[in-house]
């Protein structure tokens, strides 16, 4: 089966159009963004806890991540890898670029300088970064879809 150039261009346009429609589909909502920020902040803040409680809190964080994955799927009818190509990857790497150094600084302050408050402050900083980062990620995803990517 052979197609001509105009048919190829029309097929590409129809793909872009349907991805644009996807951008107007069901959303995750603010609750999801806040929970994401909460988990990111908690992953930092748990360092302030005694070792046993730290592991209990980490177990809760990982359980929350699994529940968020299910919530996201059910609410939006789709599952997307956070590190998917496009603008979304830049946002995901940006969030990690804040999280990892902050985690290391808080660890150093807590364990070497005995400033146990540092992870709590780090968690407080990370909460809005995670929540707004997640919101920006969704906007980036929508922008990618609207452009047919």
């Amino acid at each position, binding site marked *: 089966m*052979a197609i001509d150039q105009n048919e190829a261009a029309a097929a590409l346009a*129809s793909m872009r159009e349907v991805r644009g429609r996807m951008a107007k589909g069901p959303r995750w909502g603010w609750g999801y963004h806040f929970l994401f920020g909460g988990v990111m902040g908690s992953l930092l803040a748990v360092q302030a806890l005694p070792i046993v409680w730290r592991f209990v809190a980490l177990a809760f964080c990982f359980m929350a991540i699994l529940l968020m994955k299910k919530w996201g799927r059910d609410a939006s009818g789709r599952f997307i890898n956070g590190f998917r190509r496009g603008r979304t990857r830049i946002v995901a790497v940006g969030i990690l670029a804040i999280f990892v150094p902050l985690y290391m600084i808080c660890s150093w302050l807590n364990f070497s300088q005995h400033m146990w408050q540092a992870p709590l402050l780090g968690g407080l900083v990370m909460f809005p970064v995670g929540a707004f980062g997640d919101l920006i990620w969704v906007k980036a995803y929508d922008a990618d879809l609207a452009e047919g990517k």
Partner: protein
Amino acid sequence: MSVVPTFDPVIHAPLRLQACAILSSVNEAEFALVRDTLGVSDSVLSKHLKQLEEAGYIKVRKAALGGRQRTWLSFTGKGRKSFAAHVAELERLAATVAAASQPD
């Protein structure tokens, strides 16, 4: 990794091409989302998805949620590669239009 542009008649049918465009933008999509985005009936979409599934391009997974069965769709590795090759072929063909319409 470069993709060899290859026309794929299984993917090229308009509705299947659009369904593949949706699946390529997610890891997994629910049947209802694909159906509503395309604006078609369950039976029409099922017929087209069956062809993609028989070609080994998509995986269909059933999961229960609140006593209701939900169907999830995702590309297989073969499907993702075939779709990328098909899109590359469409872009190659469309580029010849763009080149031909350029003023001298």
